[in-house]
């Protein structure tokens, strides 16, 4: 059973979002890392890049697969986690600590489209 953290918000693509003031921190969920298997490569956008909701902002790769990372919301990248790029295995070890990017939120109303932990846990249950 994949781990889900209560206070976070979630996407159908298995990203998690944590909001503090106007900054959203984004990562991939425990369910995602477990489905991918050994993560061996992470590619992230640069600071200042503008992201639209649902657009691809990078990739995570396992030995045999490439998966797009999709931005849950619209905003501007304020920071990327270079540790995740340098040591991709950190995502397998603890997907909720190994955040990927921070975004300055453009439209807080978009956060309402995301799932809460209960809905996400049910969503995972249904897709496994």
């Amino acid at each position, binding site marked *: 059973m994949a781990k889900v953290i209560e206070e976070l918000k979630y996407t159908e693509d298995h990203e998690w979002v944590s909001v503090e003031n106007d900054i959203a921190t984004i990562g991939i969920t425990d369910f995602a890392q477990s489905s991918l*298997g050994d993560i*061996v490569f992470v590619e992230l956008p640069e600071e200042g890049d503008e992201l639209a909701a649902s657009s691809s902002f990078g990739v995570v790769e396992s*030995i045999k697969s490439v998966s797009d990372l999709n931005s849950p919301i619209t905003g501007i990248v304020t920071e990327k986690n270079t540790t995740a790029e340098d040591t991709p295995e950190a995502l397998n070890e603890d997907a909720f600590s190994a955040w990927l990017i921070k975004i300055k939120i453009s439209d807080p109303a978009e956060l309402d489209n995301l799932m809460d932990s209960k809905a996400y846990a049910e969503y995972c249950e249904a897709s496994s």
Partner: protein
Amino acid sequence: MSLKTSLFEEHVSLGAKIVEFADWQMPIQYKNLKEEVIAVRDSVGVFDVSHMGEFFIEGKQALDFVDHLVTNDIKNAEISKAIYSPLCREDGTIIDDLIVYKISNEKLMICVNASNIKKDFDWMNSHLSSFDCTLINRSDDFSLLAIQGPKTFETLSQLDLNFQIEDNDYYSIQIGSDDKTPILLARTGYTGEDGFEVFGPHEFIKALWKQLMDAGVKPCGLGARDVLRLEVGYPLYGNELDETVTPLDTGLKWTVKMSKPSFIGKQALQDYQAKTQSIKLILDKGIPREGYVIENSQAQEIGTITSGTMSVCLKKGIAFARVDKNLYGPEEEIIVNIRGKKYSATRTKKPFVAGGHK
């Protein structure tokens, strides 16, 4: 259409991730792909490759027929040898790559890729009439396990098999039983390691699988198999090899025996000037994948990646690329375009990983 091997339920109960491959529901990986690759390099693993096809050619001219069909030399090979060869059209393009098992001069088995069973059979059958022999597709009668890794022989020797297993040479075969659907053990594989491929009736293979599981042999999926074959530089039909290229474009010149008096494709291959070249690339950073574009230092497109992966053993990106011979100079710097970013690649002529087979 969706076909299942005789071991399908076993794979499901082991928690395998199943994917459709050439109409077959096959295990791509069990628990962990990396551990499966390492098991084969360091110890022993088993693959269910029952989807592959088995043809039997029997009769007075069986040997002549097979020798006429393929580019490699079957006629002069010793009895009990396994011989890898492309199967080509008259124009030299590759229909499939396969292994011929020379059971005797009047009985040969050919193992072909699952995706090409019908195509190969129809092609072979269309050339059969002038030879005094039969060609039968017996793919449905056989299951096939590839048991691979340095501990394969030791592991198989300890099983209860009803026959004695011989420590024979690489690329040679032994007969386990000579029933209507025989048991055939070939010292072959697609991993670069020592190992056996065991062809047999479904019930025998199911019992063998159970014994292997009880002995702690790691079940391995097609994902690990693909990483293993790429690491030792073996081409795959559908990726490096296809109907648009000849053996001379793809590093298989060694399998084309011009000394044979005749074979299908000989004339075309005799005069053929290769247009493309298959090269092996290694990247310090970035993972090359099938379809990515290769450029030279002037940002000119010179080819594409045909297979790529992260190497488990090297922890680096490795790939086969098909490059245009006219655009690619051997000393040239090679760039792989990965999602618009340029990653530098180095060409290697040796296998990425040296397999441990005999």
